[in-house]
């Protein structure tokens, strides 16, 4: 009896301490023994150099970039989960975040829920492994420009070069071929009033853009496996 008490007392104390922590701090000591995963949500419009009107829900690059640096250099963080539900946005800001994620050494996994459209495509493929929910969609279409456009052939050439930045990044960070991506992007008759295509979960995997169809459990499990592999390699 006495022995049993001795065993249960420290556990009860720990449980009470945890409950106290949730009550006092509103936090749970959520660190898993398999690794500490940080989660970055990329939602709404990707905001670039201009502050968008407040009816837009935005992801601001000046918030995201320092967080990515902190995740990469902090010893307490083992991996990054990027959750995407974005309608696209600024090309420069989108590519900046994508380049940061693809340049990270720590395990990274992306998960598209709802939609990963336009500049959300390079963001989705930037992680080491990408997931898409069955019901999620991706719209692949050419970039546009707002403001005055000079009607000369050079403008077309400029657009082509800007488009190439996105295409190159997607091709280099996924299994899709350049020809196939451009074919999907320039498809006519798929979108009501635009050039491009809309692809669903499994289709995105079939064309080689996304690695697998899955949900949050699959994404976290993949990260844990990547953490284990990395720890063994160290």
């Amino acid at each position, binding site marked *: 009896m006495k022995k049993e008490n001795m065993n249960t007392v420290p556990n009860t104390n720990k449980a009470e301490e945890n409950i106290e922590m949730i009550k006092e701090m509103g936090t749970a000591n*959520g660190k898993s023994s398999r690794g500490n995963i*940080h989660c970055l949500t990329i939602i709404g419009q990707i905001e670039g150099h201009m502050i968008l*009107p407040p009816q837009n829900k935005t992801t601001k690059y000046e918030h995201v970039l320092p*967080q990515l640096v902190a995740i990469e250099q902090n010893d307490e963080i083992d991996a990054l989960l990027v959750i995407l539900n974005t309608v696209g946005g600024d090309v*420069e800001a989108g590519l900046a975040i994508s380049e940061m994620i693809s340049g990270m050494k720590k395990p990274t996994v992306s998960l598209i829920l709802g939609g990963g459209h336009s500049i959300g495509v390079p963001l989705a493929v930037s992680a080491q492994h990408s997931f898409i929910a069955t019901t999620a969609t991706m719209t692949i279409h050419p970039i546009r420009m*707002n403001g005055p456009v000079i009607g000369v052939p050079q403008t077309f050439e400029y657009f082509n070069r800007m488009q190439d930045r996105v295409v190159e990044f997607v091709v280099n960070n996924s299994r899709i071929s350049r020809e196939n991506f451009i074919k999907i992007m320039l498809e006519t008759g798929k979108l009501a009033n635009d050039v491009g295509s809309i692809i669903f979960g499994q289709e995105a995997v079939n064309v080689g853009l996304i690695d697998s169809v899955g949900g949050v459990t699959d994404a976290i499990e993949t990260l844990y496996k990547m953490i284990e592999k990395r720890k063994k390699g160290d």
Partner: protein
Amino acid sequence: MLIHSIVPTESIFYSDKQYDKVSYARYNGILVEVIKGDNTSSIVRIISSDPRHYLNSSIQPSLNVNNRELFFTN
């Protein structure tokens, strides 16, 4: 500026309604977006990659926090 989005640019830049201006502040080191009031500020969202910050019951969206507990960054 190059926009690559499925939302038409006229919808992105259209605004006829007055919205509350948001401020950014730190609460115990956690960056939060708030609507600043005279004495208290209303939390709009948490900006953090640490999932545990989202479990903090004192900074859930729509809650009012005393301005003395916030360190405003703008």
